[in-house]
Each structure stands twice: as structure tokens, then as C-alpha cells.
């Protein structure tokens, strides 16, 4: 069976079994190893990617379900290996430690921001609740997403995080 969809804006045509995991298609067929496998059963979120604006665990999504859709992975966040505003905020706030949850965390953060999410701590905690991190205690990840979500800062220079909507 042939499936056609887009990955990071580029068209893809894959001839694979329909139940092949999107995760394997990305990592093995398309050599996009930025997306990680942590548990293989949808508990950890390390394999999170964005499909048509929705964050999904790519270990639970068969390729047949993304036929005709648009998939974004960590490699698609910014071109040419540079860092986008969210990635830069992670770097500056210490949001990445061992880095293995980071690609998935970035996808959850990106979807949250693209959806109009505000730099409000509780909302961010909710948005990344499906992504496990064992290194950071989440504090600096929340700070980073809040900084990137802040509408008041200029692009490329994340503003301070807010823990309170009224702040």
C-alpha cells in the first residue's frame, strides 16, 4: 500500500504496511531520528510529533492514519539546523538536560503555542502532561515554554516566564 503525506513540509510517498508505526517510518524509512522511542506504548511522549496541528504519540499512530496529512517532527521546527524561538528558550532556560524527552517536549510546546497558549504555568503543565521528563523536575521546561509563548518579547529573545496570568 502506498501512503502519501508530508513531513516537515516535504512530500513523502511510502510503500509500507499500513500498520507500520509512524515512529518507525520516521526513524528508519525517512532517517529522521530526532523523534525518540521511550516506551512504545504511549506513556512517555518521547515520540511526540504534530499531525495536522495535533500532538500525537507516533508509536501509537499507524502510517495509514497519516495518509494525506501533514506531519511535523523536531527536524521541522527550524530550517538549516538553527534554533527557533522555542528551542532557543529551552537552551537559555536550561529546559534540556539529557535531551531524550526534548524533541517530544518541543512538539508539545510548539503545539501549545501555535494553539494560542498563554504563558500561564498551569496551562503549560497541562499541555506537557503527556510528556515525561526524568531530569528537570519540569521547572525549567515550563519556564522555557512560558518565555517562548510570551507575546511581549521580540522574536528570538524570549521574555521572562510568568507563573500567573495576572502578572
Amino acid at each position, binding site marked *: 500500500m502506498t501512503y502519501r503525506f508530508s513531513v516537515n513540509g516535504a512530500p513523502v510517498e511510502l510503500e509500507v504496511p499500513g500498520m507500520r508505526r509512524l515512529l518507525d517510518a520516521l526513524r528508519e524509512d525517512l532517517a529522521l531520528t530526532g523523534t525518540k522511542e521511550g516506551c512504545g506504548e504511549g506513556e512517555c511522549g518521547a515520540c511526540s510529533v504534530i499531525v495536522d496541528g495535533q500532538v500525537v504519540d507516533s508509536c501509537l499512530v499507524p502510517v495509514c492514519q497519516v495518509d494525506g496529512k501533514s506531519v511535523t517532527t523536531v527536524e521541522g521546527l527550524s530550517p538549516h539546523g538553527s534554533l527557533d524561538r522555542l528551542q532557543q528558550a529551552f537552551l*537559555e532556560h536550561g529546559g534540556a538536560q539529557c535531551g531524550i524527552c*526534548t524533541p517530544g517536549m518541543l512538539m508539545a510546546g510548539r503545539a501549545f503555542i501555535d494553539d494560542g497558549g498563554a504563558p500561564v504555568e498551569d496551562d503549560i503543565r497541562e499541555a506537557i502532561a503527556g510528556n515525561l521528563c526524568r531530569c528537570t523536575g519540569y521547572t525549567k521546561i515550563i519556564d522555557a515554554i512560558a518565555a517562548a509563548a510570551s507575546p511581549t518579547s521580540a522574536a528570538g529573545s*524570549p521574555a521572562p516566564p510568568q507563573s500567573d496570568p495576572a502578572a
Partner: protein
Amino acid sequence: MTVTTRPPRTAPLPEAPLAPIRAPEAGETGLGRARAWPLRREGPAKLNGTALYTDDLVFPGAWYGHTIRSTDAHARLLGIDLDPSFDWSRVVFLTAKDVPGENLVSLITDDQPVLVDDEIRHHAEPVALIAAPDRETLREAKTRVTLRTEPLPAVFDPLEATQEFAHFAMNKGDVDAGFEQAEVVIEGTYRVGHQEQLYIENNAMIAVPRPDGGVTVHGSLQCPYYIHKAMKRALALSGDQAVVVQAETGGGFGGKEEYPSIIAIHAALLALRVGKPVRMIYDRHEDLAATTKRHPAIVNYRTGVMRDGTLVAQDVEVIMDGGAYSTLTPVVLSRGTLHAGGPYVCPNVRIHGRAVATNTPPNGAFRGFGAPQTEFAAEMQVNRVADALGMSPLDLRRRWVYRLGDETPSGQILRESVAGEEVLERAAEAAEFERIRAQTAGVRERRDQAGKSGGSSVTSSADVRSARGIGLALAWHGAGFTGSGEVKLASVASLELTSVGQIRVLTASTEMGQGTKTIFPQLVAEQLGVPIEAVEMAPQDTSIVPDSGPTVASRTAMVVGGLVIKAARKMREQVETATGSPFAESYQAFASKGGGLRIDEQFEAYPNVVFDDETYRGDAYPAYGWACAVAEVDVDLDTGEVTTRSVVSADDIGKAIHPVLAEGQVEGGTLQAVGYATIEEIKLADGRYLNDRLATYLIPTSLDAPRIESILVENPFSGAPHGAKGVGELPMDVPAAAVVAAIHDATGVWIHDLPATPERILAALHGIQPPPLPGISTVAPRSGTEAPSADDAGTPDEGLDPRPDAPTDPQPMRGPYNE
């Protein structure tokens, strides 16, 4: 399967340079976190998906490896049957007799085989290996293997175990006289179970045969030279033939300290036989079922005090469950024993520790390394004494805490960098401990009175069903290796100025998220007066870097970082002496003219730090880190559920080389401790872990995580050139007892066994039968044979396993460990 189109690869080989490694400019960031410190060296690669972890590495033609594991806890291996209907020439199949060197995983005690030869000693023990050219063949082959075994009696309860891995004893003063003098004696037994490290990247290793007959392994690991040593012995290789290369490593926490050695040997055995690279990538289920956990422990504690709060005697017995093989257990027990008294001066102390063998998977290193278990018990005792005397737990600690010149139970005089008092005050003040404690006490009193005057008013008030509490705990953590460990390690770190003027740090210290690759260049750049970008890190490859010892025991910044600084000072002096001008201006010319320079700096014993392994007396550690945590919780009185609202942690780490990274360690360690306190528990039946999946072994999510406020305190240690005492483990030692104290403050009940689950809290609140003790396997009834009773505590067997088929399943690991 064919791939007809590929999207352009956007990630590797960027056209534009990666985001610069630089400190944010003034005004770029407003609030505090991103300060003027070097940004994480490998951060950009981790953030844009180009960092290569083991499973991301491509070796064309690689085969897939798999481990056949035991399904018995204790048994005689009679034989291995291979289904004759399968064409075994399609795969490589290896057993113990195929191990060319000694069949053991070299560590401390020579007891753990690479593959079982005769006696299976724990569930999920490696018995045979298979490699196949593709996953489908591998899947098929592994279902055609049957282990023929004869069950042997198994030991699960450490109190019934007869084999001892290690024991230690410390005595100070006259304990019996101390208890005679005591006006109040508080006793307690505290039990903690297994905890999984739960790095998000599973264990992974790829072995590649070398032209010289040896093998190179690329893997997720903490200690390249532990693996190097183990490979040499098991595979009968020379030092040059065994090469260990660290890939990007997705977390370790001790879980990749010793276990990667056995995976490396397995992968290497297969690769040498196949003649091609072999990938040994564990999935989460196999990683949880087979690899090491934190040691369960039973701590019996007696504390004798006077009515005025004077501490007069401590008597502590520590029993740790090592599992089936020794691994690092003697050292874990030693650290646990040395920390068991807590950071308090006491005239009469007796601490006995022993670690025993059970037929459960071996336990090993995990952040804190024995200290979280015993310090939980120690802090529970302090809080219970305060409760019994009607004193503030803060005031009691103010009286007891070690001060300069005090003597520990091992006879060590604390000569410097003693900051228990400071972290206590800093955390208590920031968390407003006494003010909130007075509030929660008032609420509890009103609730108790309402309860006494008739239940209706209680249920009518919504806020009464949830109770707020605050708790405090204090900890110390010995810096670096225990006892004479650092002297025996004699680590080497090197600094190189190459002939092309490149400055390179050569150490075996690995980056696993804690920041090695950022702080070493930072330390060197500071010493040499050059920009941090001018300092490179050599890869963690045993053919390139010297043995700097393992990346464990919070020793990297303190010990290896100290060596790196000393090497940089020597390099600067030599270059400046030769050129007569500042290093930064002259080193490139010096290098191109003189052909470069290499400084090898070896660890020398810290002055006046002496520990006698024979008598177990002396300076157990050259210095100590100190930490205080204050936790606030809400307890749902209907469900017993605990929400940890906030933790304030003040940590004296000597010197915060890089405050953002150090805070990251405190925040992460604190959350692991909160998980340990509230939700993380491995349940066992027949010596097998039951919740060996991420769906059933829970760790805190962002919604479970409290707000964590980290206060870094700096009391430098004179033996380290920068004063650092390490930060990795200290924050793990202290919060569990603070959380349980907060649960007590909220509810009035003490929980002695971790984790403080809703079941344990409700049992304590309502005086009903608690769930089974943590850390001890139950024995499932067997059909056809005499059913052994459940353990001696009379704990029920039912309701243990989240999966309905498991407790009576005679072959629980059917279809195991699919890759």
C-alpha cells in the same frame, strides 16, 4: 517495503551555523533563569534533533541481538531446547560455553555470570543470546527456545536471607548507657522498596567487530572504563582490542553505571560471532524487568532523648536487599550505613548495616546510593521525636545539627564546610515553615474538634475533605567516593594543547544531561583566560581519553573538575613561562612552534583525609554537601491521594560552578524524591517485577510535580581547587521524609513505608490492614504443589498485580521482551 521518496534532510549539516554558544546579552532575558552562564555545550544538537543517541546510530548490515532470560527466580538450568523445525543456521545462538574469557561481569565481587551456566538465581537473568539479520527472523527464533529448568527454593524476604554480601558496623560512646539515661525512646521500623531510575532512553549498546580481532561498543553509559574492564575479562581481549565509546546518553541516574557492562559483553559476543555490528537495544519492558533498581531497605531505628530535647543515643540497624548478585551492593550499603545517623551530633551511636542476597533481580546504583533509604529513616525519627516532645522539628534540628568540630560515628572530625545549620535556616525562612506550620496546626485542631463534636459538620464543609500540611527534613551527603575509594581510583584527567593550537579536555567523564561537557570547558576557559568556545571536549572513547574514573557519586564536578583545573593551571604556567606573555595571547604561537603540550593530572589524596577500611573508622568523605527540604502537601482525606504542592530545597554544594545546571540537578533530584515518597513502587510476585511497563510503573508528570524552589548555598571545600562538593545526589536524599512529615502534619498519621500511597494513608487513617510491605516479593500459590504461605507479616496476596492474569500465571514472561 520500499521507500520511493525521501524528504530533504533538514537536520544534519546545517548551512547556517548552529545557535551560538553564548551567554544571553543584557536585556535579552528578564527574570532569573537564563543568566550569564555558558549555554549547554551539546544543547543545540539536542534541541534540533541532530544529537545521536545509540539507537540513532546507523551501522550498515547490522544484525539485531536479543537476550533469552530466565522465567524462574531460582532454578537449576538443565538444558536449552532449540525447536528443530526452525532453521538455526539463519541466526547466531550463544550460551555460556561460548564466552571466550571468564564467564563473569567484572565489578567488585566475581559472582555474576555473563550467561547462566548452571544455576538461575533471579527472574529475567540472561541465559542465552540470539542475533538475526532482521527483526522478523529474530522474533521467530526467540519463540523457538525453551529453557528446561528444575525449580529450587527461592528466598525473597531479606530477613530470611542467609547469604550476606557485606556488613558494616560503627560504634561511638556507650549506646546502652545512653538509652538507660534517656527519658524518652522513640522506635521505628521503616521500609522502602525498589525504585527504578527511569531514564527516558532505555539501555542500548551496539557492538562493532574490529579488524584487530577486538570489538568496539557504542552505547548509552556512564562509565566507559567499567565496561572496558568487564569486556577484557569476559571476552579475553587486550586493552586495545576492547574499545568503549559513549553515544549521547538519555539519562543515567546510576542505572547506567554498572548494568551496561553486561549488555556490552552480550552485544560484543554476538558481534564477534556474526562478524558484523550487532544492535542490542532494550525496549522499556525489558529495561524495567531486567535492569537494576534502588535497593529496598529495612531500617530499625531507636532514638533516645531527654525531655528537654537533648539527643543521647541512636541505635540503627540497616538491612538492604541486594538481589541475586553483589553488583555495587557493598558500596551502596557502606554509604547507607555512614549516613544513617543523619547530620546530627550524638554522643552514643551504634549503626549496623548488612546487605543480603535474595532471588530477585540485582539492585544497583541509583542517585543517592544507599543514603536516601537510611536518611529517610533518620529524618522520620527526628520528626517523630519532635512530635513526641511537642517541639518544633525546626528547633530540634537547630539543637542537633552538626557544627564545625563535631565528631561523626565513624570518628571523623568535621573540620570545614559544615553548613547544615545554614541550609536549615535558608529553607525554613524561604518556605515560611513556622508560620505555615502554625496555620496547618490550627486547621487540624479545628477539624479534630469538629470530628469529635459530631461528624455532620465535617462532611458539610468542603475544604475539610482536603488537608494541607508542611514538613521539613535535613540531609548530608558525603562528597565523592566513599572511604578510600578516590585514592584507589587514582583518576587521571588530561588537557591537551595540540600542535594546531586546539585546547582539548580529555576525560572519561560522561555527559548524561548533568552538564559535564559544559562545565569542563568553562572551568578550563576560566583558568586559561580564553573564551569557552576555544576549549573542546574530546569524545568519551577509551581509545582516546584516560581513565578518569566512573561518572558517579556526584564526583565529576568535584574530583575530575578539580583535576581539570589543576591541569589548566599547569598548562598556563608552562606556556607563560616559555613565552613570557599571557596564555591567551601566546598559546597558539607556542603550539605551532613547540608542537603542543599535554598535561596528565592524576588524583592525589586530599591532605589529612584518612579512612581505614579495616576498622571502618576515619574520614569517610573529604567533605559533605548539606540540604534541607520543606514540602507542602494536600491530602485528600476521602481518597488518601497526596498532591505535593511545593518543595523548597536549600543545598550547600560548595561552589555552584554553573548555577543554571546546578539548579537543574536540584529540581530533577527533588522530583525523583517526591516520586519515591508518593507514587513509585515496584511490586513483585515470585521474584518477578509485576509492574514492568511504563503504564504501570508511574513517575511524576508535569501535573504531579510540585513547584520547586532551589536555593544554592556555597560553602567551599578546600581540597577542591574550585571548592565544589557535588550536586547530583544530595537533592535526592532529603525530600521524601519532608513529604511524609507534611502528610503527618496534614493528617496526624505517620507513614513508615514508602511510597506513601493512598492505600497506605487510608490504612493508617482508618486503622485497617495496610497493603503488602514494599520491596518484598510475595509467593503466588501453585497448583499441584504445596502452596507456600504469603510472607510472615500476613500480607494478602490478592490485588497485587495490576494485570489480572499474572499472579497465578506459571509462565509470566511469555512472549518476553519484544524489541
